[in-house]
């Protein structure tokens, strides 16, 4: 079981990073971005395309891919914050569902469905605890998740930018009256999460099987993890991602529980929702 749990940690790290991105988006720009990992996937595929077909050095290609992931996210953010500035979270998020569909199909069209020769940034085991191997990718993704969460927290709590961002998310009208530029800041948040998500996917994709659909659907376990923090708390989002990954790894060790593995994110989501929403809450303040 422990072996399985540690084996699932790499996936858990990725879930955690994506969960942090989802939480940031939900808090700061009022959207659950279903296309979060899809933008990452797309950036990654572009990187491979550059490396293979245009013989760009792989570090440069990866960098370009990450930037493109950020740019894609920025475009989406611009669309949402321009045309859906007043819309509720549901409508804004539904837009990202359409984008998810679009990106997956576009990836099939542009890159085909044959496996891509991803150049691994890291490969091989990092160290062994008690006979269980922990891979370098695991170490890096878990570290990335924690660093991103801590970094975001520091930015939000300590810097002037963070104050503005929080003002924007909590009192949008007041913030605008105070002259805080709403749209550029929102697009900035979209861009930042796009970059982070693409970076995380770039690290993990070469170490996994990677077709556009499975990479884009990583948003499901990530959303489950983000829900642990109620789409508000970064620390719980990270924890949720890591625990979910480890639980999936552990469950996969048993043949009888294997179907449960797929339902884990779903069950986690449902259980968390039941717990956090025990009391009746109303849709509008009054």
């Amino acid at each position, binding site marked *: 079981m422990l072996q399985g749990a540690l084996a699932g940690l790499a996936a858990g790290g990725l879930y955690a990073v994506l969960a942090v991105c989802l939480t940031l988006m939900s808090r700061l720009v009022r959207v659950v971005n279903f296309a979060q990992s899809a933008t990452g996937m797309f950036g990654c595929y572009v990187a491979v395309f550059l490396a293979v077909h245009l013989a760009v050095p792989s570090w440069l290609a990866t960098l370009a891919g990450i930037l493109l992931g950020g740019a894609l996210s920025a475009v989406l953010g611009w669309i949402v914050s321009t*045309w859906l500035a007043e819309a509720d979270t*549901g*409508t804004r998020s*539904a*837009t990202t569902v*359409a984008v998810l569909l*679009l990106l997956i199909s576009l990836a099939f069209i542009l890159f085909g469905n044959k496996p891509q020769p991803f150049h691994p940034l890291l490969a091989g085991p990092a160290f062994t605890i008690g006979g269980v191997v922990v891979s370098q990718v695991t170490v890096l993704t878990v570290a990335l998740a924690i660093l991103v969460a801590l970094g975001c927290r520091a930015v939000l709590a300590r810097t002037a930018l963070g104050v503005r961002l929080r003002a924007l998310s909590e009192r949008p009208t007041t913030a605008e009256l105070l002259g805080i530029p709403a749209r550029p800041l929102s697009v900035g948040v979209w861009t930042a999460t796009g970059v982070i998500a693409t970076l995380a996917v770039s690290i993990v994709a070469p170490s996994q099987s990677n077709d556009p659909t499975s990479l884009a659907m990583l948003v499901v376990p990530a959303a489950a993890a983000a829900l642990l923090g109620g789409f508000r708390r970064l620390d719980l989002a990270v924890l949720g991602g890591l625990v979910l990954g480890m639980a999936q790894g552990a469950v996969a060790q048993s043949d009888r529980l294997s179907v449960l593995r*797929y339902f884990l994110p779903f069950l986690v989501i449902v259980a968390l929702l039941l717990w956090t929403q025990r009391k009746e809450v*109303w849709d509008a303040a*009054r």
Partner: protein
Amino acid sequence: MRLAEKLVPFAVAAAAVAVGYALSVGLAGYFVYLGVSAVVAAIALLGLGVVTGTAGMISLCQLTFAAVGAFVVSACNVAGVPGGFGTWLLLGGLAAAVAGVLVGLPALRLRGITLAVVTLGLAAAADLTLVQIQFPGATEGLSVERPEAFSDDRSYFLFAVLVLVACGLVVHFLRRGRWGSSWHLVAFSERGTAAVGAGVRTSKLTAFAVSAALGGISGGLLTGQVGLAFPASFTAIQSLALYVLAIMSGAHLIDMAVFGALLWVAVPELLKRWGVPQDWGFVVFGVLGVQALTGRGNLGTAVRALWYRRRSGRTAGVGLTEPVPDVEPLPPGDPVLEVRGLSVSFGHVTALSEVDITVPEHGILGVIGPNGAGKSTLVDAISGFLPRATGTATLGGRPLTGSPARRARAGLRRTFQQDRVPPGLTVGAYVRFVARRRLTGRELDGALAFFGCPAARTPLSRVDAGARRLVEVVGHLLARPRVLLLDEPAAGLPHEEHVAFGRRLRQVPARFGVSVLLIEHDLDLVRSVCDTLTVLDFGRVLASGPQADVLADPAVLKAYMGETELL
């Protein structure tokens, strides 16, 4: 006229069946088969129309419910359940509805986006699971037997059309009935739903269950079409695409669901003929979906807008100019609503503190006070929207407790300061739903005319804001509650209509047998309507009693009159 109106859906259904028959005979074999695919998609889209279009929720697992239906139909086929394909199809729909309720129960306690997360999680999990477990009979290659009379492709298409028409009729009548009204209402405002005594959860759950049942039927129909159920028919991606299609076509309208289904089949077919890779289909759907969502309107509203522009673009308002016959006011009786020691605090801010209020039977109590005095909080607390409020309330001698819906059913109704009237309904359907009892046409028309509201057939989307408030009041009055709490009902009316409105309000206890608690800014209106007054200031009762005494109270003058000059 009314009979003709009732027959219209059936006439449309008959016409649809006729068209279906003509197509089943006239089309080339291959197109007949594609037609079945379109019908299958149309039924699934109808379901999505109910849950996303009417009830305003995001459901991303429609094909998972289709898989449930397919599973049941396959299992029935293997087990040889008596009744044949038609029965299996119904069972499949039922099973999917049960699955929908099971998924919905936890998810629907929540709102908006969490349902999307849950359903996407379910779709992804089911996608992976279905590949591993097998549909019954798949291993042996046991084909599902189509109904005997409809066994070849052409007649099966006709069968599918019949099923679609039946589903369309069911959806049409459900939507016109109580469930449908509650879906519209819950999409527009959960508070508004609870305030009429309808359960928010029940409303959502019925929408979700109906949608899932339609999904199940479409899955069963698909199994009959292909002969075997395959996981590849029910992938998460296709569920997403179907959702986006429902959004962009506006599938809450039945004709648009059918049109969306035609797109679902025609776009890939055209791409094939033009030699364009099939994956572009979903790209097209994705782009159109984004454009529909970003407020550029979907196909359904675009077509409807063209139609209505031709008919009439005018909005209907209030007409209170006609005089109404006077009715002798009833003398106020014993207290019917008694509130004692009501306190509400938000964090450190005390909104209400030890408030006592009494509404006499057949009386009209006015509650006045400056902005921020706690008037609306008072209404929220009495009607149960602030469960953390302390103090007691009794209605007709019985303690008034529990959820807003429960209090509403116990005979305490309220209106809202903000617009809680869903634009998707007609005036009549909305009032009937709010009244929660059988109304005769005369009763309905009489009450609407009394308050100068637009006719019952008018869509609420074409009624102006002031009139919508009055329609809300009429609905609640026709519910015959013991007490109705009115939160600034005249706010949307032009000032010159206030007096006419007040004259009518004055007759409410005698005409409708309802006692009223009125919150109002307009002192003239209050003076002309209320027997007794309670003045709130900073969450405390400043004065309470007969109108003349209260208005003469120096403390009231000092605290309140300074502000009225602003009015």
